[in-house]
């Protein structure tokens, strides 16, 4: 077994200073560690060090039967657990060729889009914290709390739902859900202009985020950036539209895109996406058919030998699962292509050359969740 060489201690010169940002730092959103090379206040070089939250997610997955992996996926992107469940069960279903009942599909979309709103709300709040705007954080959490209440009424959990099953859904929606969810949406829609008043329209905020952290389209594709970051760069690419899964092709929604790819564009894309998700949920609630929620699934899940890569558009971007099966009850190899991991890899490119304060804003605009980056 070869051993990697340990990096030599860094020599500081007169002009440059190395600052270790993280793993414990308020604005690294978890246990990310960034080695910053500073020239005064200007960041000349960023080296991310990740893995502080590595917990052998993939190795564990290989030692569990297919159903047992679902609860572990919750812990990947813990701000969008529903979506991780969604991506995983979809992959296994595709691997086995399982059909999912209509009602279950609608339930999946409703919950997933609500999750997207909740995840974007957290992002917006913490992004406010990064820029020193503390109030938006509380506003966003107020709304997210209501979404979590809804999720609790559905699944009994508030963060790690483990609610999707291979082949369908485990429980039907509670009776009150339809009215509660509609009431929430009606209540939520006027909240978006409220965020604009606090954040979007604020001139200080605009001056802080416009024109920094520019990510051009070529670099974005080269680094396989996905999700709101890619759309912020002006590429109209959304897997819900471009590689439709589940029943997303039945809904009408816009794909907001930015123009220059700066932090402001990424902010606006997420801000507008919340409204689009509301539209999708409204349509899904309207069309929600009655019927079965669990498809025909064998007692023992034994996919044929083979492998598959399948992807969904999680709130952070392309969440992919690669599963190689050897015909047994357990995945032979189970790999997660996490959007935050890939999106973070572009930080040294778009973050260098900015002031420390801008670097923090840029990092915030990437929207990382370390549970997913480190797996």
């Amino acid at each position, binding site marked *: 077994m070869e051993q990697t060489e340990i990096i030599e201690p860094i020599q500081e010169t007169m002009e440059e*200073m190395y*600052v270790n940002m993280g793993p414990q*730092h*308020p*604005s690294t959103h978890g246990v990310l560690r960034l080695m910053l090379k500073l020239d005064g*206040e200007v960041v000349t070089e960023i080296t991310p060090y990740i893995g502080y939250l590595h917990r052998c997610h993939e190795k564990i997955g290989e030692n569990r039967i297919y159903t047992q992996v679902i609860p572990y996926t919750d812990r990947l992107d813990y701000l969008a657990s529903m979506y991780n469940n969604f991506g995983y069960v979809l992959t296994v279903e595709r691997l086995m060729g399982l059909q999912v009942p209509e009602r279950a599909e609608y339930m999946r979309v409703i919950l997933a889009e609500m999750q997207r709103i909740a995840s974007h709300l957290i992002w917006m709040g913490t992004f*406010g*914290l*990064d*820029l*020193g*705007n*503390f*109030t938006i*954080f*509380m*506003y966003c959490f*107020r709304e997210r709390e209501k979404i979590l209440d809804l999720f609790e009424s559905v699944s009994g959990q508030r963060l790690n739902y483990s609610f999707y099953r291979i082949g369908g859904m485990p429980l039907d929606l509670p009776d009150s859900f339809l009215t509660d969810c509609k009431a929430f949406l009606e209540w939520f829609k006027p909240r978006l202009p409220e965020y604009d008043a*606090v*954040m979007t329209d*604020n001139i*200080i*905020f605009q*001056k*802080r985020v416009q024109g920094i952290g520019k990510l051009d389209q070529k670099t974005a594709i080269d680094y396989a950036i996905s999700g709101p970051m890619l759309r912020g760069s002006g590429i109209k690419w959304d897997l819900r539209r471009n590689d439709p899964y589940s029943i997303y092709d039945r809904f009408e929604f816009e794909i907001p895109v930015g123009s220059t790819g700066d932090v402001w564009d990424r902010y606006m894309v997420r801000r507008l996406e919340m409204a689009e998700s509301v539209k999708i949920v409204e349509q899904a609630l309207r069309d929600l058919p009655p019927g079965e929620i669990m498809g025909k699934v064998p007692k023992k899940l034994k996919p044929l030998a083979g492998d598959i890569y399948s992807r969904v558009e999680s709130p952070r971007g392309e969440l992919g699962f690669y599963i190689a099966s050897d015909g047994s009850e357990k995945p032979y190899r189970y790999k997660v292509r996490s959007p935050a991991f890939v999106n973070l890899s572009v930080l040294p490119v778009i973050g260098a050359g900015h*002031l*420390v*304060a*801008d670097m*923090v804003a840029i990092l915030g605009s990437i929207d990382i969740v370390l549970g997913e980056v480190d797996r």
Partner: protein
Amino acid sequence: MEKSMERFYAAFAALGVPSIVPQLILMLVVASLVILFISVSVMFMIWWERKISAHIQVRYGPMRVGGWHGWAQSIADGIKLLIKEDVIPAGADKLVFALAPMVVFAAALAAYVIIPFGPNLIVRDLNIGVLFYISISSLTVVGIIMAGWSSNNKYSVLGALRSAAQAVSYEVPLVVSILGVIMTVGSLSMIQIVEAQQRIWFVIPQFVGFLIYLTAALAECNRLPFDIPEAESELVAGFHVEYSGMRFAIFFLAEYANMFTVAAIATTLFLGGWHGPLLPPWLWFLIKTYFIIFVMMWLRWTLARLRVDQLMNLGWKVLLPLAFLNMGITGLVLVLLG
């Protein structure tokens, strides 16, 4: 007032004690009163800020300690900070580290000498009044630099550097913005400035100066949107990263005491000091001061933080020329009116 002082001295003279003793006693009493006032006022301000921020953010804030709306929360926090362990980092320069909070607090304390709470409620009406405040406030920066450097922490050094740059740049517009008022009154004495505002508060003729002063004062107190020296998301806590317990409490105390000072100076210079109908003068003074403090808190919980270069641009390219313009126009008007 004066009579009772004379009687006080006479009583000691009758006992054959040298006059130094009553003088010292008097000084100590006044100093203790000021410190007492600062402590109570700061505790109130902290509680108030928590309440204001909570209501801006649709929550309640402290509700438990002390019963009614958690009024004793600050006291509880203060006690907690006092009994915490005093940690000095291993690599720190111990002497400077220990000295820094004292310097900051001493500067904050000294400024209270010239605050006119009422017609006779002033520690000493210095004839250099405003200038005294301006000069003493620059001491705070020395304390901050000492704290930042002695902590032996890169974040705190960065915070100290930012703080020094900010203070040096914003002191200039601050001073120039005050000049309009001083030119109108023709005196630096706080009492005379207040008395000159019997008919009209200077906030009306000197509105631009007032706005510049308020902006620069926010920067002087390191409050959001100018809290760059302690920007949490960038420098963790800036210059006081390594401070805890009692020493941290002193920094905190000084910060809020400074906030009160700049608000009190704004009241004196622009809002007519203790003038006002019906209510007693000292109450008017406090009402106006706390109103300005409220505005500062309001801004803090509404706005985002500026970036370093934006801060410098605002200071040098916007506030300073505006302040000079204000000063020039004021001078012109004064000359034309004779």
